């Protein structure tokens, strides 16, 4: 009996796992068969889909029924592995409709571009300059402030025109009070399909007058705009409502001519603000490539209108810009540019007895700067300013060395030192302070969020 029990225990312990193993093997075999059948089903499904795809692709492509189709981008999952078999050339070469007439808009895809620019500037200067409100940023001496927060919308209206709208908020200084102003910086449309190589721009425009007037302040090459522009056109520059027509000559070299008619709202140089005595502007711009790596642009500009007291005011400008961009560089190594403005203006002057007479004031000013960017993230330069005042007697000069750090294309920091020397005593409200000779440290932080239109040359 005892022997039988021992034999039974031994048989159970030896044969038991073997039987269980046989059962597992059967189960695995069944699973494998099932997987094989599933694989065959998938294979058939893939082949059926492939056949269907071939049938669809072999259909002749319909004739192009619209000049330009809507965008449809066939997407594939990101980064197929290196072993993914690409479609054969013969398959790809088969005629097909390369696009559809209407592409479903994807998330985040809009019919216009928009972006935000934030431009913050600061300055530190002497106390007497602050009292006289005679610094570069008059009324905002020794402050760090938002100079321009700009919301931009731009894009194609239809096949014939594009539009650009810019709304800006900025800290301003008026009558001794600092306020945050929100306003329209630009709003215009450009007609693109006019005959004879012409385009027309209508609306509120930063005029293409000279080299830098067209640029918004965040896009200036230095923290502040050149003194001659501030003196002759005001801190806001020439920004007018009206229309401008440009023409690119069909020549082997670049020659652009433009003419415009505007209200004349600029209260520093013109200010009549009426189309009965409009501000008329004109510009010629040409460009030559000296070599593949260097190029020069030359321009002349003119503007003629009336002041609020109906006296003629005329401005003429000459500008030049040179860039040297070594082969393969993503940015210019050397930029040299300058601009001169000449003002011819009728003014009313009074003698000691109070009698008035009309006189002509012919004044001028200029600036030039050189900038070197040996590294992608760092650049440095220096600007020199010299200008007379358009109406009052006197003149001023300034020199401004600066450096900039660009962590990326969309972020920039600048630091500058500016020394200004005026020929006369400059006093502020209530005859406080004086800003004849003074020094400033200027600093700036600028960001570009979202889309930003590129600036030509």
């Amino acid at each position, binding site marked *: 009996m005892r022997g039988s029990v021992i034999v039974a225990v031994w048989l159970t312990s030896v044969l038991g796992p073997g039987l269980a193993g046989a059962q597992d093997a059967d189960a695995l075999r069944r699973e494998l068969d099932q997987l094989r059948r599933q694989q065959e089903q998938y294979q058939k499904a893939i082949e059926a889909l492939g056949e269907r795809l071939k049938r669809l692709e072999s259909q002749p492509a319909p004739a*192009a029924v619209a*000049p*330009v*189709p809507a*965008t449809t*981008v*066939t*997407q*594939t999952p*990101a*980064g*197929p592995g*290196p072993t993914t078999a*690409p*479609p054969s*050339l013969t398959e*790809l*070469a088969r*005629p*097909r409709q*390369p*696009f559809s007439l209407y592409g479903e808009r994807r998330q*985040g895809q809009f019919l216009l571009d928009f972006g935000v620019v934030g431009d913050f500037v600061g300055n530190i200067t002497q106390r007497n300059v602050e009292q006289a409100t005679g610094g570069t940023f008059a009324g905002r001496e020794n402050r760090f402030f938002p100079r321009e927060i700009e919301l931009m919308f731009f894009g*194609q209206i239809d*096949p014939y025109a*594009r539009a650009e709208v810019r709304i800006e908020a900025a800290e301003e200084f008026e009558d001794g009070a600092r306020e945050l102003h929100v306003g329209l910086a630009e709003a215009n449309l*450009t007609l*693109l*399909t*006019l005959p004879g*190589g*012409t*385009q027309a721009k209508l609306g509120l425009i930063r005029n293409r007058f000279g080299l830098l007037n067209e640029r918004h302040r965040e896009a200036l090459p230095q923290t502040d705009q050149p003194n001659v522009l501030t003196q002759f056109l005001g801190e806001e520059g020439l920004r007018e409502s009206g229309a401008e027509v*440009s*023409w*690119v000559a*069909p*020549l*082997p*070299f*670049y020659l*652009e001519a433009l003419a415009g008619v505007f209200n004349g709202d600029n209260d520093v140089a013109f200010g009549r603000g009426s189309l009965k005595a409009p501000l008329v502007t004109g510009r010629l*711009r*040409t460009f030559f*490539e000296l070599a593949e790596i260097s*190029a020069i642009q030359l321009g002349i500009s003119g503007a003629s209108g009336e002041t609020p007291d109906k006296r003629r005011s005329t401005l003429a400008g000459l500008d030049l810009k040179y860039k040297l961009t070594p*082969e*393969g*560089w*993503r940015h210019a190594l050397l930029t040299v540019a300058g601009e001169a403005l000449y003002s011819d203006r009728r003014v009313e002057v009074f003698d000691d007895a109070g009698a008035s007479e009309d006189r002509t004031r012919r004044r001028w000013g200029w600036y030039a700067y050189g900038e070197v960017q040996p590294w992608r*993230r760092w650049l440095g330069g220096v600007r020199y300013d010299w200008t007379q005042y358009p109406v009052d007697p006197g003149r001023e000069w300034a020199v401004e060395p600066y450096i900039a750090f660009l962590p*990326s*294309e*969309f972020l920039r920091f600048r630091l500058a030192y500016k020394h200004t020397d005026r020929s006369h005593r400059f006093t502020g409200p209530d005859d406080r302070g004086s800003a004849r000779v003074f020094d400033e440290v200027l600093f700036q932080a600028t960001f570009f*969020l979202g889309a930003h*239109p*590129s*600036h*030509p*040359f």
Partner: protein
Amino acid sequence: MRRSVSMVLVAAVLAAAGLQPAADAAAKLRVIATIPDLKALTEAVGGDLVEVESLARGNQNPHDLEVRPSLMVKLRRADALVVNGLELDGWADAVLRGANNPAVIPGAAGFIDASRGVPVIDVPTSRVDRSMGDVHPYGNPHYTFDPGLAPIVTQTILEGLARLAPGQRATFERQRQAFVARLESALGRWQAALTPLREARLVVYHNNLGYLFNRFGLTQLGAIEDRPGIPPSPAHLARLVREMKEARTRVVIVLESWSDRKLAARLAEETGARTAIINAKLGTFSGPEAYISSMDANVTALAEAAR
């Protein structure tokens, strides 16, 4: 009298001879492509019926081209503009604005976006922003690196050219088919030449060679630029050097002519990697064979680095 007649005849013959090329040129479509690869592909389709120029030169980074007025002069008299799209050549918009040529603006018959129909890779599947660098939200725009996609691109170009010259459609189609046949033959050659490189691990400067690597089964180890358009951080470079050293196989740094070669040379010296410069001859070829010649040069540069 006889002398006068002779002189008139000679003058007429000379004038005719002088005018002939001008007449030929007038009959050709003037096409501007934004990048040299698209110029080459347009020439392959258009042949003698087109006169093509590229706005970007071969040695220029197509991401951020300086918009010179000389580019506007080229576009001023063009019949067609072929753009890469997918935000690679966004600067073309500024060129268009200054060229005053309504024939090539978006929406006109002469505007050809070559990216239409291309199966785009690296399309972000999650929200993107600029913390990731200068990302392309519509996906990798460097599809011209993949010769296998050239049939799609040339089909799009063909449709555009045929819109402007419908009478020449048959010729464009014939030229395209001939080009595709040559390309197919070259593709086999390139596959064979690059087979040894499949064992290697590749490091790129800018993350733009995905199409090329996918086509030839090559494996990318990393990129020198950790975020597109932003110079690499020291921490990223240190990590990349470690990965290159640990690769236990040949590592090849693939650069383009505009990449930071000094930095790449430093990495190569530190890790023992080899360097291949592609697109070094981009833009130096012209005519219907330009694209294949340019690819030949790239494949040769890559294959040599694998030896």
